[in-house]
């Protein structure tokens, strides 16, 4: 145990480890807050879909040899998130079909562009790294850390300030509209926030594993609590703890960061499920 603490204290001296922990906590916090809304709106897989769209955006940015791909990726992802979510319950192409259509389309076009224009000598490496994010969170520049922090603060602040309206639109959009809430506007805001979180979360767990970061904390919390507020708070705490454990375990054990975080989320879900059954909670 003493050697582990000694190793950790050595590792924490490296600035990129501190950056990874800070950004990891912020990203996991943001994704867990919106995860509850997405799970309840039956949009659990939108994280996966939008991450594929973000991959397509990154591919376009790479082809154009942009120094920083995040702005273009963010714009493309926001546009697709708005198309998917702004329609809400009354969209012509609903939920899973719309996500599948945009998701696979963006992934295919993105990979096609990368193959045709080959911006770097290691195409498979770039694609694999983007998909699984093995060490992306540990190779952030200071500018990227600041950008992640600012966007995360904005997301959390918006969620706190608009909590009641997000709650209303999540549970009963028609009733919210009938009582004077501009449901379309809040669906738009939710869509933009989700897109921002997805682009940030790709640095943490990669494209293929983003859904786990969004879904597992919310589902784990729902095993233990019933109210929206309790589930949201519990989801945030679980997500942050699992991300911290995942990042630290990955750097000590030499495992991929994204997969380790998801493994921690799965273990947390299993524990919450058992605890929920034992306590006779909301796990039915």
């Amino acid at each position, binding site marked *: 145990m003493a050697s582990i603490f000694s190793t950790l204290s050595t590792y924490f001296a490296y600035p990129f480890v501190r950056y990874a922990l800070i950004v990891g906590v912020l990203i996991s916090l943001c994704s867990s807050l919106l995860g509850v809304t997405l799970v309840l709106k039956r949009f659990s897989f939108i994280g996966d879909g939008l991450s594929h769209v973000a991959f397509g955006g990154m591919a376009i940015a790479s082809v154009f040899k942009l120094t920083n791909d995040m702005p273009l990726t963010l714009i493309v992802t926001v546009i697709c998130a708005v198309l998917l979510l702004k329609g809400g319950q009354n969209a012509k192409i609903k939920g899973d079909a719309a996500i599948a259509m945009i998701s696979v389309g963006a992934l295919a076009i993105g990979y096609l562009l990368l193959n045709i224009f080959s911006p770097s000598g290691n195409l498979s490496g770039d694609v694999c790294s983007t998909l*699984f994010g093995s060490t992306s969170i*540990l190779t952030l520049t200071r500018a990227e850390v600041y950008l992640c922090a600012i966007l995360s603060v904005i997301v959390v602040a918006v969620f706190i300030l608009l909590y009641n309206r997000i709650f209303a639109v999540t549970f009963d959009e028609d009733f919210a509209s009938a009582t004077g809430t501009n449901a379309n506007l809040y669906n738009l805001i939710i869509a933009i926030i989700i897109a921002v979180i997805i682009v940030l979360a790709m640095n943490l767990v990669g494209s293929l594993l983003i859904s786990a970061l969004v879904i597992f904390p919310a589902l784990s919390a729902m095993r233990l609590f019933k109210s929206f507020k309790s589930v949201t708070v519990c989801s945030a705490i679980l997500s942050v703890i699992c991300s911290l454990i995942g990042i630290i375990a990955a750097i000590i054990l030499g495992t991929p960061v994204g997969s380790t975080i998801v493994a921690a989320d799965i273990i947390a879900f299993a524990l919450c499920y058992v605890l929920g059954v034992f306590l006779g909670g909301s796990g039915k």
Partner: protein
Amino acid sequence: MKKFIAIILAVFFIIPLVACNGKDEEKTEDNNSSSVSDSIDYDLSKLSTTMAYSQVVEMTNNSSKYLGKRVKITGTFIVEETPQRNYYSCLINDQTACCGVGFEFVLKDTSKSYPDDYPQSNGEITVEGIFNRYSEGENTYYELIDAVLL
């Protein structure tokens, strides 16, 4: 009340970044003040592969901080043979095994020749040398000079 909470959270999130900025400056000054010495400045061989990979990326992204420092690294020995010269590298793969980063190295003992005096290609090696940067054409490369195979 919610606005107050949001402001408190914003301050809470920004403080760690400010705090870390100061520590980075201290570490930078400490590193820059030490000249080339026989002691190892950065021993990547003792780090996990995830950490070693990340540190190599950090060194290539901010190479000015590390120039002239003695570095020890463990990885896979890669040889690239060209008509002009051979390039010897020590490569670290990331955990998905699809990406690799590392440095070239130039042995201090120039009498050694490949393949007789070098390890087997694609085998694991540990090499120690002085971190250096050079350019060929438009490209920049990173190497360990005055290197010794351990």
